[in-house]
């Protein structure tokens, strides 16, 4: 009984911040205009999402009628199943699930390599005295903007030399290398904000580079880890060129399979299957975005520029 009462109390107590004092002024026409404008823009932004969903649920008969915005006559998930299990990419007709599994396989080593590498580098640059740290940071800042095309072919040779070309590890190595500059800068900026008292206490306590990292710094970096993790998951999942260039036949990520299914398909195009395949590819990052949007925004703005 008491627990119910407590819950009720808690509900009232934690129900948001103190309510704003009710405004007596009515909404001004200008404010209505702004809200209407924003709502129209929001609708425009939603149009492609709406189109992709309704198209994937329509039958080809209805699509041939030509009304792209109409709701499906009967909600049919057949195209989804077709795209997931049967759609043809090249000569192999096993659907985009192949790409889904490949992308998952690529994701794990890529995340471990890229985050491990840049986390340690950022920590060393931020909290330890390294003579050439500032010039190295500047070089990293430059590297973050290098177009992929100029290092594409040498990286093929390097991954070939390491005997990982065409495997998930090849893709992971390239992802780790490409993401290293920007992630290092993000980690370094975050660790730079750690109070010096904590660092000097830690130095007195053990003074070992790795022990301080594992026992003190890592437990403190939960927030930035989530931000970077989401940034990396979405960018690796959405990547196309790296997967296309360094992936073998059996290790193509989902975006590449999707492009094969849609663009290089022969015969009459079945747009509902195409859109279902595209939607399935978009779902994982979208789910992450809608669940953890705050961290996603932090990641992309930090990843954009914070030299």
């Amino acid at each position: 009984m008491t627990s119910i009462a407590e819950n009720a109390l808690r509900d009232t107590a934690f129900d948001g911040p103190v309510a704003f004092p009710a405004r007596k002024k009515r909404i001004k026409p200008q404010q209505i205009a702004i809200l209407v404008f924003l709502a129209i823009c929001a609708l425009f932004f939603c149009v492609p999402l709406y189109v992709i969903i309704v198209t994937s649920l329509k039958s080809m008969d209805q699509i041939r009628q030509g009304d792209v915005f109409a709701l499906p006559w009967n909600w049919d998930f057949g195209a989804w199943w077709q795209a997931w299990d049967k759609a043809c990419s090249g000569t192999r007709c096993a659907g985009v699930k192949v790409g889904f599994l490949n992308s998952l396989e690529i994701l794990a080593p890529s995340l471990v390599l890229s985050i491990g590498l840049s986390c340690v580098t950022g920590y060393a640059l931020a909290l330890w005295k390294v003579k050439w740290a500032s010039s190295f940071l500047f070089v990293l800042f430059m590297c973050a903007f290098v177009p992929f095309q100029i290092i594409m072919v040498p990286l093929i040779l390097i991954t070939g030399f390491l005997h990982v070309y065409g495997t998930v590890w090849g893709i992971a190595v390239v992802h780790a290398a490409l993401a290293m500059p920007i992630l290092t800068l993000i980690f370094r900026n975050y660790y730079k904000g750690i109070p010096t008292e904590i660092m000097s206490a830690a130095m007195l306590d053990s003074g070992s580079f790795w022990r301080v990292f594992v026992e003190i710094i890592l437990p403190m970096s939960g927030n930035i880890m989530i931000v970077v993790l989401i940034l990396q998951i979405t960018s690796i999942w959405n990547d196309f060129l790296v997967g296309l260039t360094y992936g073998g036949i059996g290790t193509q990520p989902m975006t590449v399979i999707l492009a094969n299914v849609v663009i290089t398909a022969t015969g009459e195009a079945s747009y509902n299957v195409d859109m279902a395949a595209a939607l399935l590819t978009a779902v994982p990052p979208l789910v992450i975005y809608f669940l953890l949007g705050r961290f996603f925004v932090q990641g992309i703005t930090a990843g954009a520029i914070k030299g």
Partner: protein
Amino acid sequence: MAVRWSRWSPQLALTPALVVTLVAFAGSIAWTIWMSFTRSRRFPDYAIDAVRPFRQYERLWHDDIFTNSLWHMLVLGIGSLLAIVFGFILAAMIDREKRGEGIFRTVFLYPLAVSLIVSGLVWRWMFNPTLGVQHFFADIGLPWIHFDWLNYPQTAMYGIILATVWQGSGFYMALMLSGLKSINSEIWSAARLDGVRFWRLYIEIIIPMMKFTFLTCAILLSLGVVKAYDIVFAMTNGGPGQSTWVPAYYTIDAYWQKANLGLASAAAVVMLAITLIIFLPLVLITAWQQRRVEARIQ
């Protein structure tokens, strides 16, 4: 001993990153520049072309497809500036009318979470000349509205620009919003007291105050435009004809389709040069801003 060991371990921990920088970035760039002076075809040929070392660059210069692709990139860049304008308008409106900020931000930013391949394919489907949005306009009695831009060389690039603006506006909105929030709130109340009209407030005070944010956005956008490949591939695959080829597309094509490493390397070097030209002002501005901040502290 422990102390010395720990002094060395930061350097040791930095080794992988240093190797990546030296090999995957510096070394690879140098390798590609070297290749651009050779006559390599499918496989690297390390002998520099002694007779005409700039052969590949001359070829690029005389290749209409490449010069056109530079032109297309410029069009794409100028068109995509709309994303910054649009992003600023959205940010200013959201900032003015706080109601629904969370919802609007979520909606405007979601395209960024989606792969460019996916959004390219969706837009391609909407641009479908017989079954897409064009058909919808004809149905509601507006047959003069054309929405089959991707089918014609003259308009295909505008289709890509539309998709790019849709994808990118939210990002610039997020950057602008954080810029707007850092503006001193006294300015707003002072302006209200003076009865300054709100659009004049924006044009004469707010935008000049945010010029660095605008510049940052413009530089980020240009760097993104130089790299643009996925969206072109998904929407038009370069077509119709070569009307939507951009340097990034040309480079990939020169290597994989033409099997001409020398030419691809030269095109990649041109891309790098463009990036540097865009990038240089950014470095100067950051340096200048830093000096200004330091001057203020003293």
